[in-house]
């Protein structure tokens, strides 16, 4: 007998006796939304949070207006823990935002409901509207569990004026190719000289993800896959991993480019004009632009040959409900579709809309510098799909801290690569709690 069956059998009677009565009469008497409002959860605070607030305000106006009860929870493991617990509890919100990289921890465990593609098509959203690389990650076991809102890659921002002075712009005014580790190092030196300061900024100290983001993209460029098969051993090319880490070490050598910045320190160094370029998520774009520097952006330089960019995708999911209401579920589909169609506004924060009709919109092409890295959406590399990886996960924290020791000079590149494999093996050794 399954555990739920076992428990329900013995205790359902008691539960039935306890549940109704006094409090169900006033269940959530102070609920901020009405009985018909759609409950949506996300983890956007700050610039993204305000933008999302505006997009939601837009769908709550007009003839077919929604009533939306929005909840923002703290980004990271806190959010994902609450989402899983709410879904297990059966009274989860109708719609929630999930990083696509975390789908493998949710869909197989029954914590999400699949989307009804016919219903979505009725509201104007179809498979063909998404980049295949992303759409493929939204599925599990033949069903679609996530509808991507955006792709948010790790990109490369630079000061246009300094790039020009350093001779790093091509005739179209775009950043020149940096097709090898040597080319990238040379470009970094040229940037540093033109800047009279730091060439490439990267903040990673005590950061839970930055090192992994940089590594993951570069490693994929070597043509290898960081594979974590369920119940097996990690399949990682240790030579390629070593090469990537040692490239990171030589790029952030502590002289041309500092190796000991933290996230905020690196961003501040760029906005204060102390560095020529910065490797960071595109979501920092609004803040970087506010500094007044002429901002250029490129998809991540293709250093090792195969085009690949580390990215993730904010997606909409339908958390499991104990007693789903068909009409609400329908409204949830319609809400997701409406938000996707309005994702041009979302792009103003730097994100690449996942819904291709918006990307093809001439208005999007006018967005600068967003449109210059739009192709990153097609070569996005997410975390290896398994239950313990993804944004805000312990896996990213552990990988990042290993690389941090390498960048700070406490570990060699080779032993860092080995340690990453060992730590992955330890995580893989845990019994998989979702399948």
């Amino acid at each position, binding site marked *: 007998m*399954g555990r739920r069956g076992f428990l329900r059998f013995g205790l359902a009677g008691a539960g039935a006796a306890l549940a109704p009565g006094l409090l169900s009469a006033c269940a959530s008497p102070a609920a901020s939304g009405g009985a018909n409002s759609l409950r949506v959860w996300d983890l956007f605070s700050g610039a993204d949070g305000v933008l999302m607030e505006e997009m939601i305000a837009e769908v709550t106006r007009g003839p077919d207006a929604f009533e939306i009860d929005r909840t923002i929870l703290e980004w990271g493991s806190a959010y994902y823990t609450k989402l899983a617990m709410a879904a297990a509890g059966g009274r989860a919100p109708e719609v929630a935002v999930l990083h696509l990289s975390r789908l493998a921890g949710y869909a197989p465990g029954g914590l999400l409901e699949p989307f009804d593609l016919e219903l979505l098509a009725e509201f104007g959203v179809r498979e063909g509207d998404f980049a295949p690389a992303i759409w493929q990650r939204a599925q599990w076991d033949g069903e679609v569990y996530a509808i991507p809102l955006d792709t948010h890659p790790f990109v490369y921002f630079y000061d246009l004026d300094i790039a020009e002075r350093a001779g790093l712009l091509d005739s179209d005014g775009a950043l020149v190719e940096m097709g090898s580790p040597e080319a990238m190092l040379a470009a970094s030196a040229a940037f540093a000289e033109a800047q009279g300061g730091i060439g490439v900024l990267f903040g990673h100290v005590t950061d839970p993800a930055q090192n992994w983001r940089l590594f993951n993209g570069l490693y994929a460029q070597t043509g290898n896959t960081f594979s974590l098969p369920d119940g097996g051993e990690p399949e990682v090319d240790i030579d390629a991993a070593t090469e990537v880490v040692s490239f990171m070490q030589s790029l952030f050598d502590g002289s041309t480019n500092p190796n000991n910045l933290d996230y905020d320190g690196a961003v501040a160094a760029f906005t204060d004009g102390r560095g020529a370029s910065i490797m960071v998520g595109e979501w920092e774009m609004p803040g970087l632009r506010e500094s007044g520097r002429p901002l250029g952006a490129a998809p991540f330089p293709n250093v090792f040959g195969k085009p690949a960019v580390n990215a993730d995708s904010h997606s909409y999911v339908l958390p499991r409900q104990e007693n789903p209401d068909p009409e609400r579920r329908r409204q949830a589909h319609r809400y997701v579709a409406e938000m996707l169609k309005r994702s041009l506004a979302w792009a103003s924060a730097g994100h690449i809309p996942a819904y291709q009709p918006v990307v093809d919109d001439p208005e999007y092409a006018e967005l600068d510098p967003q449109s210059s890295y739009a192709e990153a959406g097609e070569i996005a590399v997410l975390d290896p799909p398994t*239950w313990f990886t993804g944004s805000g996960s312990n896996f990213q924290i552990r990988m990042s*801290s290993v690389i941090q020791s390498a960048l700070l000079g406490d570990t060699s590149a080779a032993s860092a690569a080995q340690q990453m494999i060992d730590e992955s093996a330890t995580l893989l050794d845990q019994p998989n*709690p979702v399948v």
Partner: protein
Amino acid sequence: MSTTASKVPVTEEAGGSTVPAAPARRRRTGLFFVLPFTVVFALFMVWPIVQGIWMSFTDQSLSLRGTEFVGFDNYAEAFGDPDVWSSLGNTVFFTVISVVPLVLLALCMALLVHTGLAGQWVWRLAFFAPYLLPVSVVTMIWQWLYQPDLGMFNQALDKVGIAPVGWLSDEAFAMWSMAALTVWWTIGFNFLLYLAALQSVPDTLYEAAALDGAGAWRRLFSITLPQLSRTTVLVVMLQVLASLKVFDQIYIMTKGGPNGSTRPILEYIYDVGFTGYRLGYASAISYLFFAIIVIVSIAQLRFMPRKEG
């Protein structure tokens, strides 16, 4: 607590003497009084304890997949899990650095207030008020005090020319910061216990000592402190157990960071069970920790002076 053992037989005799008066009725007297509590006690104390033991032998998950019996696998894993040991170490470290000031400072405060200086209610309010704050209010306040650029502490350091400190982000400081906050927040409770104990020291003891010509320090060391020994044992006992169970303020402020340096064992149980879905494994760690608590409690009970001497 140890005192019950000696209490129970006393009442037993008193109750027993009335039994012959109405035997049939007496046999179930009190049963219906105890029943409602017993039901709730069984449902929300006994059952979860039993259920938790069962879970600790399974691979139960928060996700909806089935459950299998895994024997002692979880316990074996826990003994070899470095995070169990490091979070346990953090918990013990926190307990040591929080209990000492929470007991000694509370005693000092209570002694000072008990000297009868003017403004008794002001002192009581100042020291006890933080105890009435919900933990989130405490963490909001201290997050702001510890704020790296604008917080009160770093601004004060700046005024005297000392470089700012990463109160919550520096591994060397984070746990001390959590202990300082905890002392500020909860000391009022111990303070009140000591104050009440001081007030119940019979005046006659002091009078007799005064007649003998004992000075203030003599009276403190030969009367006051010995009279407080029972309270001290109780306060230490309650405080050790409370500190071992630390979770709230650390989870809210640092989530166990930086780099796991403040993560207490209860947070690890939460992380494993709810963030990592592994309810079975989390249960096993819970019971290991419970075993430690029982051992600590028993050890402490041995130091308890007998109340009825």
